């Protein structure tokens, strides 16, 4: 009888411990679940942020690739560089010649922006080694009504800032 009571007591104590252990495991799993949920929420937030950033980047690219729509105009600004030849008679002549070269460079830049550039590349490879690498570029356009905004001449280099307003009607002619 005494042993049976002791056994019953032992059983009840062990069951008590077991229930406590179950409770702690449930708490642990609950905490883990919470943690996982928080992580998932964070990942979702990050994904949303990345998506928003992507959309922003896409919108900026779209803005950069601005199209000339009907009844609208586009402003293009470029900087051309020019250098005077070595054998000039005076600094004034050097300035005039460098400016002429800078204007031509600015015209070329406008033509590149408006009409684009044809590019042709050629690589020669012999015995698994590159022998010659050539890139050819070609631009052809007609530019009118371009305005010089600013001219600077410093240490033999002349820089001309040039702008042009292009309207849809110029191309519709």
């Amino acid at each position, binding site marked *: 009888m005494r042993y049976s009571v002791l056994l019953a007591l032992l059983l009840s104590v062990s069951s008590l411990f077991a229930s406590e252990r179950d409770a702690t495991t449930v708490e642990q799993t609950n905490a883990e679940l919470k943690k996982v949920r928080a992580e998932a929420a964070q990942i979702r937030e990050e994904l949303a942020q990345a998506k928003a950033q992507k959309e922003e980047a896409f919108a900026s690219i779209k803005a950069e690739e601005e199209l000339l729509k009907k009844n609208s105009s586009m402003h293009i600004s470029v900087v051309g560089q*020019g*250098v005077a*030849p070595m054998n000039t008679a005076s600094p004034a002549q050097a300035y005039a010649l460098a400016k002429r070269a800078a204007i031509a460079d600015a*015209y070329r830049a406008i033509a590149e922006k408006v009409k684009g550039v044809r590019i042709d590349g050629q690589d020669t490879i012999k015995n698994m080694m590159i022998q010659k690498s050539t890139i050819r*570029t070609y631009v052809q356009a007609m530019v009118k009504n371009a305005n010089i905004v600013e001219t600077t001449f410093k240490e033999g280099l002349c820089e001309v800032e040039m702008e042009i307003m292009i309207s849809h009607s110029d191309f519709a002619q």
Partner: protein
Amino acid sequence: MRSRDGNNDFSLRLCSIIIFGSLALNASEYLISYKYIIEDIMLYNETLLISEAMTKCHGKPQEEFIFSKSDNKDLKKVISENATEFIDYIHRLGLHIEHKGRTTNLQNSSTTTLVLKTTCFKVDFNDNFVKIAPLK
């Protein structure tokens, strides 16, 4: 017999014909072409050719340019006196651009040519100024 008013009308017409005729005699047509070449961002060659037109040009005068304070009757002299302004005016009229770039083994060289194709200009020589306008 003509009335006084009729005679007055006739003389007015005669005067206007003489005035406009004399103005037309002073107006002449010139062929002008301009070209300059830039090699490796340095001016390599510049050519401005001016010649009096031997046949009549067709078209209407467009954007005009006035050489003020010039009573010279020789267009070449007038242009040489005001070369900078005239070159700027030619730029405004529009130039054809041809650019060729070549990069060989990472060394770049380029040639840019700007051209005003031979264009007929109407030139009016006056007492104090010279007016020039392309015919299109």
